[in-house]
């Protein structure tokens, strides 16, 4: 059974900090994060809501996805505890990559993302033209807790179909993960208690990255865009583009 987090742990009114995408080094962001003080910030996310879709997804191949950015190399850790290059997980196939942690229980967080992915997996498996051409990659945001054993157990809940290429990976340690987060623009921050110590309640913006077989990010889905019919057609569009 998957261990649970604290669904109510997110305090309303949080602004997260992250290693920025504009050239702010992760180490600098780390230092900055500890310096910023509290001043009654009034940010209120309001009630969460699932994405709405009130349109028909454009047909595959009727549009061209933007080439947003290349994925840079990194070394991660697979479920067997072996090192694996990120390029081996993001090239050669159409890849849908997301970040997660094993005990996230926010209904519209990681569980929602993985449920969406599971639905997409079933669609992909049902399309012979996509056979062997698509993989999913789930990268843990918490190398400290999410050991290879932990992600193996978690993966069993979603990736129980051996015929489908769904990889779960973690990192050896946080410093090796930070450049990956920075490259993808995946923000992460951690709450602190009243004395300024990290409480280890972490926030991140749910993002999924659609990557073509050449390692180029072609679409980014945040919660408002997690619309499986559109995502499936995007995958099909990349497959048609590759021929």
């Amino acid at each position, binding site marked *: 059974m998957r261990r649970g987090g604290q669904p109510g742990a997110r305090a309303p009114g949080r602004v997260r900090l992250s290693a920025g995408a504009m050239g702010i080094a992760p180490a600098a962001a780390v230092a900055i994060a500890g310096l910023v003080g509290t001043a009654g910030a009034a940010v209120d996310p309001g009630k969460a809501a699932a994405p709405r879709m009130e349109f028909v997804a454009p047909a595959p191949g009727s549009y061209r996805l933007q080439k947003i950015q290349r994925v840079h190399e990194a070394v991660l850790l697979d479920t067997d505890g072996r090192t694996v290059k990120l390029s081996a997980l993001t090239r050669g196939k159409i890849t849908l990559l997301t970040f997660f942690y094993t005990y996230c229980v926010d209904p519209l967080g990681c569980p929602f993302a993985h449920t969406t992915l599971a639905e997409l997996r079933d669609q992909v498996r049902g399309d012979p033209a996509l056979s062997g051409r698509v993989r999913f990659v789930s990268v843990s945001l918490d190398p400290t807790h999410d050991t290879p054993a932990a992600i193996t157990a978690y993966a069993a809940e979603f990736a129980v179909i051996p015929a489908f290429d769904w990889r779960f990976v973690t990192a050896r340690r946080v410093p090796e993960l930070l450049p990956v987060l920075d490259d993808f623009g995946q923000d992460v921050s951690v709450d602190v208690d009243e004395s300024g110590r990290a409480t280890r309640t*972490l926030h991140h913006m749910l993002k999924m990255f659609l990557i073509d077989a050449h390692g180029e990010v072609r679409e980014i889905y945040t919660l408002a865009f997690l619309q499986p019919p559109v995502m499936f057609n995007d995958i099909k569009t990349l497959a048609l583009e590759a021929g």
Partner: protein
Amino acid sequence: MRIPRRLILSCGLAAILGAAASAPRADETCNSPYMTGLIKGQEDFVHVWTLGVPGMGDGSDKLVTVDANPASKTYGKVIDKISVGGRGEAHHMGFTDDRRYLWAGGLDDSKIYVFDVGTNPSHPKLVKTIDNLPAKSGYAGPHTFYALPGRMLIGNLSNTADKGGVTGMTVYNNKGDFVAKYDMPASTLKQVKGDGYGYDIAVNPAKNALLTSSFTGWNNYMRDLGEVVKDPEAMKHFGNTMVMWNLKTMTPEQIFAVPGAPLEIRWALPEGRNWAITATALTSQLWLIKRDAAGKWQAKDVGAIGDPSKIPLPVDISITADAKGLWVNTFMDGTTHYFDLSDPEHPRQTYSKHTGSQVNMVSQSWDGRRIYVTSSLLSKWDKAGKDNEQFLRAFHWDGHELTPAFEIDFAKEQLGRPHHMKFTANPPQMASLLQASAP
């Protein structure tokens, strides 16, 4: 009870994004629905993108930060300013999807300045200058900065070839790299001729709908307004269309004839609403873009703003969080209007106030209780003499009356011409992942 040592993680910001995507917006409001961290309470800072004026201070365009929190000792004061080292017709700004960075554009030099406002919003830092927009796209005059996931969609006003109004949209990734360009339609689509002009951008993600409006090119917006209005040929070169795009495919699907330079666009995003609103600068009308019973988008003139025969020049609008009210600033008569939008097909002006000799941008807090007004339209279009007031004025709004809260005289303080405003709030104290993982 002892806090467990293991990490307790939450997907809080996924929830934030979901809320932003589906909840109503206010000016905290004109932000992209993909942006996180809406400020629903008291904003701490107002950032004002300010045009430099020769002989005024250092003469440079600058980002001016004003303390807007009444609980602060420096409330209503300028607490920071960053000059960008030149005068490029500072105009509009927009946050990235993570609200950490503020992109600000120059309509004359087409430069884009990226400020870090997430680390310490009381003292933003200029972290990047993007100057390749004309070379990469052939467009000029970056106007609207609209966050998409991991990217910035930019609505431009002009082009490098003839400096007219034919232009398009550009996309950059959040690292500042050019990604794509999309021409505004200039051909005929479903019996309506496009003019190729651009201005504002507004997205409704649930409908896969991207709506754009149209203004004019460099030849007009960088020319003295008095000369422009007396030049019949120049007056032909204003936008008269809006375009509904398929956001996914980035292709235009429908062109609407909306005469008189439709400017800012605001979607009503509460669930069940299916309309957006805009105001036309030259004809002083409110236009509704709404789906009809057959599911087709229609543009409809729904009422006048002031006396259109006097050309009051509505220049900015701000929709309330519940989409039941709309602030409109008219530049020429210096008036701030409030319209009841309970029935968007029949807006009713219920309040107006003379807020300056010339007024341009109007921004409201999420709760609608605070209204901010700036004075400058464009360096060549602002009034002269004593009417050339340059200010940021903050007001309290109780639903009946605008009451002055504070005012900053940008001329007296040698700052320049204040134009676009964006709000930020002090972030709560947070730790990094690295700090949290330390033994």
